[in-house]
């Protein structure tokens, strides 16, 4: 139910997702730790959805859930749909690497002992496709024969992105693709994503860097303590505090170094020790008694928000 995107196709729809890990606390007893709860997110074709939030808010786990690469002690409930069809574990295996592609964080995710051409080609691709992908990103043919350590930073970026265009992928998930890059290189990487989206892919850009997210994304989903607190068009963030709906998103704007650089107090609650009701309540300036109940996502001014005080 994209608010603004009724004419676009839904590529990925995650509804009411929970992810929990079973773990041993002391000795033999197992306990469950729920790290993602009632999470909703939808990615449409031709757009970039930026998932922002602090570390530990469940951004990467969402990516791993969609790809089906969570460890064995994880349990998932809720529903996921890919191109309008339920996404089962079997589908995930078939689709990942073809229609659903992950762009990893750095070259460290490549096999250091294998030439990059062969790695980009993968098991499913062909040499022709690989060459085409390389040409598209201005990588010459001798790059194929290089090992990952021989690539310069910029080349490495392009090699990683080229893995995504090998197949006719519909959904591209990029997990923190920019840390450690300087501004110019980060922007170039993001431009590649923009291009892919413009050609009809859905891109899920996972990042903690709201600045960069704003420069390319169409929509922003803000995560907090394992749930979505706001989903809105990126313009709202650019317009500033008043256009936003959730107090946590507004706190983001204030904390930016180019703005007032003023943080709110406190930290995100620990997954094993979550408050009842609104998870943000104990840091929130708008807190009232109503915040203790269960808070649903509601539509406000063309976006969605999980806050009873949002107007």
């Amino acid at each position, binding site marked *: 139910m994209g608010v603004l995107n009724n004419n676009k196709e839904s590529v990925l729809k995650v509804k009411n997702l929970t992810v929990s890990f079973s773990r041993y606390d002391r000795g033999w007893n197992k306990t469950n730790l729920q790290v993602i709860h009632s999470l909703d997110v939808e990615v449409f074709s031709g757009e970039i959805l930026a998932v922002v939030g602090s*570390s530990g808010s469940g951004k990467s786990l969402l990516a791993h859930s969609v790809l089906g690469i969570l460890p064995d002690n994880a349990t998932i409930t809720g529903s996921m749909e890919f191109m309008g069809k339920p996404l089962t574990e079997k589908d995930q295996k078939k689709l990942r690497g073809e229609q659903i592609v992950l762009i990893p964080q750095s070259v460290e995710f490549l096999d250091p002992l294998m030439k990059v051409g062969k790695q980009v080609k993968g098991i499913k691709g062909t040499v022709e496709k690989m060459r085409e992908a390389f040409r598209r990103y201005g990588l010459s043919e001798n790059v194929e024969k290089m090992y990952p350590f021989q690539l310069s930073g910029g080349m490495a970026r392009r090699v990683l992105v080229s893995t995504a265009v090998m197949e006719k992928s519909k959904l591209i998930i990029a997990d923190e693709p920019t840390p450690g890059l300087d501004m110019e290189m980060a922007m170039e990487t993001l431009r590649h994503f923009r291009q892919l989206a413009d050609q009809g892919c859905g891109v899920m850009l996972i990042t903690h860097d709201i600045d960069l997210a704003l420069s390319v994304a169409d929509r922003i989903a803000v995560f907090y303590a394992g749930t979505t607190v706001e989903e809105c068009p990126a313009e709202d963030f650019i317009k500033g505090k008043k256009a936003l709906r959730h107090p946590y998103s507004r706190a*983001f704007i204030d*904390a930016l170094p*180019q703005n007032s*650089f003023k943080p709110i107090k406190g930290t995100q609650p620990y997954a094993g020790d979550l408050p009842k009701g609104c998870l943000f309540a104990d840091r929130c300036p708008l807190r009232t008694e109503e915040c203790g109940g269960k808070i649903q996502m509601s539509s406000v001014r063309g976006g969605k928000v999980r806050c009873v005080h949002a107007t």
Partner: protein
Amino acid sequence: MQLKADNISFRYNDKSPWVLRNVNFTVESADRIALVGPSGYGKSTLSKILSGYLKPTEGKVLLNGELLPEKGYCPVQMVYQHPEQAVNPRWKMDKTLNECWKPDQNLLDSMGIEKEWLKRWPSELSGGELQRFCIARVLGPDTKFLICDEISTMLDVITQAQIWQLVLEISEERNIGLVVVTHNMALAEKVCNKIVRLPEISVQKPEERISV
């Protein structure tokens, strides 16, 4: 106090290209210097040299005119980009926190470190929370300079602002000089009182390194 990089050059071995060439610069206790420059100019290498983790191939690092001590507590301490890698995963947090000195309750409160976190394992805390521990543990009374190598790059903006407020407050209170490596210009301008561009103080350009 003064921390001085005296004509520092660095390369990994005799055959490898120079990473840094003839770098000179000085930090005073009251300074908050931002070290900026594109990737590949050796910002991280320079911070490691300044804090004594690496030995310069040529030149010296001088603290008040003397070489950095090889043994004992180093007055120049460094905080890393990835706090997860900078704490022992097999230690609970209170042990990590108290590894070299016992921070008092006041400091913990002002750092926003909650009592309950001390009993947790590193894997049960987020990056921002861990980074607070990494900073608190090097704020001992003997620390004179703090080198911050992209310490907030992996953190969200709220935590970033929290962390920097703390560092600024404490460095001012204790007269600790700061060297801040960052790629975020807005941050550098907000946090620091002096900006040093590495390409201007190091003769070595990355292109030359690749061609060697």
